[in-house]
């Protein structure tokens, strides 16, 4: 089985790709529009520099080859959501060529290309089959990432997409709801001919749509039928793919160069753009550089790349073991609260260093860290943790078998955690309860 994906990512520019209309959510349809994105005769597109910058960043992230010269093409597009009957996209000189992306840092997935194009508007069907069009989305910049058919299973495609989205989000600072703005065309073949499922949104749906296609095509072939090359769509509610139209051939698109925009020389931009290390690459580097366990590295980076940076600073100023135990423990536990405060992390480093130098006990350091990170006084942190310990100790007194079980099975402590969560109604974070429970159980060994 072969699976290839075409991933469309909305680029987080402030204005559209070829006009200055804002890209923010509009309160009413057709309010962020102008002659250019409405495709009116005589209007002329001018390329947004930031869209090119984001394109180059993603091309670099995907290890693509990037030529100095790039330009755009018009693709025939006869649907009402693109009113000028062509879509401006890139054809023979895209922003990035042949690249390589490593799933889990190991499995190579070849990237065919990455190109820039404009998003169409949105069409709404109404009762009598007529259509209503909102052009607010028309002209929002998209990057389309095309993979070779190197993915082997629907689950692997989902995994790939998840990792890709996380990396994209990190590299170009995509907003939190980034997954919503990522759409995917999924190509799958179990034999010779492939089918394309257009416009699938969300990781789970990509896996569902591909799984359905896999079963559908296998059944056809088993019963001696033939797969027809076609475009299908995914019905999210019923979980099935439905034939939409016979697949257009490349020649039907009638690509021509886009004369209004001209050509672009991007070598200087390419040389001056440096991208942030992706979460995956950071994870792999931490494992290699500090000799730490891969799961630990992944846990640090996925909580926040900032925590991973704190880990690196601590590893350099104290030692790797100290750095791990504080960053995965107390610092991770209070990270959410700390992120809300507009504070530098300097003081966190100082506190752990003071502990490491022997000028503070473990308990004191815990209290100080929690107090600083949550912005509450040491006194109230102390009281709260004392209260928490009373509750846990009482439960352990009544259920001494938990301590015994914990010697063999880590999960035995979960009973305590569940009990405390219920009794305190969420006034302690689960991370705090876990930490206190572990401490008190091992004190009874």
């Amino acid at each position: 089985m072969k699976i290839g994906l075409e991933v469309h990512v909305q680029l987080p520019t402030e204005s559209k790709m070829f006009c200055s209309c804002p890209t923010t959510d509009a309160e009413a349809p057709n309010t962020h529009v102008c002659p250019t994105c409405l495709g009116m005769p005589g209007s002329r597109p001018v390329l947004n520099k930031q869209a090119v910058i984001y394109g180059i960043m993603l091309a670099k992230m995907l290890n693509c080859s990037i030529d100095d010269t790039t330009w755009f093409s018009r693709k025939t597009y006869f649907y009402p959501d693109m009113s000028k009957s062509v879509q401006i996209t890139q054809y023979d000189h895209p922003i990035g060529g042949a690249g390589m992306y490593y799933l889990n840092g190991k499995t190579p997935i070849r990237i065919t290309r990455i190109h820039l194009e404009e998003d169409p508007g949105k069409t709404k069907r109404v009762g009598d089959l007529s259509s209503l069009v909102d052009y607010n989305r028309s002209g929002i910049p998209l990057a389309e990432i095309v993979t070779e058919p190197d993915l082997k299973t629907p689950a692997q495609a989902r995994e790939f997409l998840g990792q890709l989205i996380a990396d994209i989000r990190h590299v170009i600072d995509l907003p939190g709801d980034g997954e919503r703005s990522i759409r995917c065309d999924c190509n799958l073949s179990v034999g010779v001919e492939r089918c394309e499922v257009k416009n699938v949104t969300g990781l789970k749906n990509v896996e569902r749509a591909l799984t359905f296609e896999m079963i559908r095509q296998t059944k056809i072939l088993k019963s001696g039928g033939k797969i027809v090359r076609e475009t299908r769509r995914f019905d999210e509610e019923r979980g099935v793919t439905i034939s939409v139209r016979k697949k257009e051939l490349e020649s039907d698109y009638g690509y021509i160069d886009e004369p209004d925009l001209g050509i672009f020389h991007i070598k200087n931009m390419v040389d001056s753009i440096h991208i942030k290390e992706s979460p995956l690459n950071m994870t792999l580097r931490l494992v290699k550089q500090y000799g730490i366990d891969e799961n630990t590295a992944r846990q640090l980076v996925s909580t926040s790349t900032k925590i991973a940076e704190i880990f690196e600073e601590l590893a350099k100023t104290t030692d790797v073991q100290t750095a791990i135990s504080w960053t995965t423990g107390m610092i991770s536990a209070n990270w959410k609260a700390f992120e809300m405060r507009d504070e530098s992390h300097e003081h966190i480093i100082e506190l752990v260093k003071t502990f490491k130098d022997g000028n503070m006990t473990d308990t004191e350091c815990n209290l100080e860290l929690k107090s600083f990170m949550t912005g509450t006084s040491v006194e109230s942190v102390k009281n709260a943790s004392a209260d928490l310990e009373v509750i846990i100790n009482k439960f352990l007194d009544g259920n001494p078998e938990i301590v015994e079980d914990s010697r063999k099975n880590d999960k035995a402590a979960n009973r305590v955690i569940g009990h405390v969560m219920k009794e305190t109604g969420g006034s302690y974070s689960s991370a705090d309860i876990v930490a206190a429970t572990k401490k008190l159980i091992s004190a009874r060994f």
Partner: protein
Amino acid sequence: MDRDIIERVARAAHLALTEEELTRYSKDLDDILDYFKVLDEAPDCEGIGVNPIEVADILREDEPHMDIDTDRLLRDMKTYEGYVRGPRLS
């Protein structure tokens, strides 16, 4: 011109042509394509570019603004509650 080609072009352009129109357009398109034959004699173009006169490296900064009142733009279109009316979809 080949009727099959005319049918395919019409399908790509979402046009439903009658038998009579298919016959007429196969002749018309033949005439049009004949005009373009003159280009076969044009000298080969050196280098790359999408325009006879080079248009290059025109970029704008990413600054949103709106210059034209959208009500004016929509005034001459068929609309419904702010939406533009499109064709019937099958």
